[in-house]
């Protein structure tokens, strides 16, 4: 379980690892090719780290950072709280996307990062929490199972 969480966190952190100045160029390029099908890379929406644009836009970068953080560190919240938090995270991201694309405000990296990170963290932390909860609580004998 810990190994899977660490692996998932590492995979989700790839855009940030590749953006690090310590990453070799072949690794940076390979990660870039991997993420190319998954993001639009519109100018003004991509963070520039160390003089080079990241391989994903700032909202995706936030989502991936949030996922990595959530896989590494979850909070002991109730299922209902996580569900409400996910709804809030989706709503905040949607409001930012709509207002930005309607021209109400220019793309603003801190907001894009924060809304993405909240979304990513909520999903990953909730996953980890429910998995740990299932491991701690014995399976109900009344639970209907087939196959």
């Amino acid at each position, binding site marked *: 379980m810990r190994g899977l969480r660490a*692996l*998932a966190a590492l*995979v*989700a952190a*790839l855009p940030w690892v590749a953006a690090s100045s310590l990453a070799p160029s*072949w690794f940076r*390029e*390979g*990660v*870039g*090719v*991997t*993420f*190319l*099908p*998954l*993001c*639009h*890379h*519109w*100018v*003004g929406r*991509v963070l520039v780290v160390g003089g080079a*644009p990241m391989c994903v836009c700032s909202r*995706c970068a936030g*989502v991936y950072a949030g*996922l990595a953080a959530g896989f590494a560190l979850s909070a002991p919240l109730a*299922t209902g709280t996580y*569900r409400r938090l*996910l709804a809030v995270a989706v709503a905040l991201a949607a409001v930012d996307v709509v207002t930005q694309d309607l021209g109400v405000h220019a793309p603003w990296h801190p907001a894009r990062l924060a809304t993405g990170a909240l979304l990513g963290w909520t*999903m*990953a932390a*909730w*996953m980890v929490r*429910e*998995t740990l909860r*299932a491991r701690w609580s014995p*399976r*109900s004998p009344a*639970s*209907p*199972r*087939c*196959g």
Partner: protein
Amino acid sequence: MIDPRRFLPAVAIGGGAAGAVIAIPLLGDALRCCFCIGVMAGAGASMKLWLDTHRAENLTHAEAMTLGASSGLVSAAVTWVLSVPVRMGFGEGLAGFYASSTVLPDVARANLQALYTPSVGMMIMALPLQAALFGVMGAVGGFVALETAFKARKDAA
């Protein structure tokens, strides 16, 4: 231990469809802005297909994540397999098409060109990374789908 083969053929259909859409030039490029959602939606579609054909069964969180991860792996494989002939046969043409575009911003143009003209080494290196990434996103998609769209089919265990 959950055997992912029990989720066939649902994950092959749902994950395969998502992977194919991601790999299709122009259509995939137009939808590029939401494709981590695409992989997750593929996992959700796979879950819907599986639940519809197994009406007497419910899913635990671990099973939902396994189903989603399997769907993501299929998406990665399909995307990669379809992208190889597209890049080999039409890569230069597509890169030229995007290079001549006056609508696209420079970064998007450069990235679309890079998408269709990677070196063979980078294409090979991208396969395991893509499989891991799509697998993680699929697992997240499977979990979220079970907790939101298919709550009634959640096994409480």
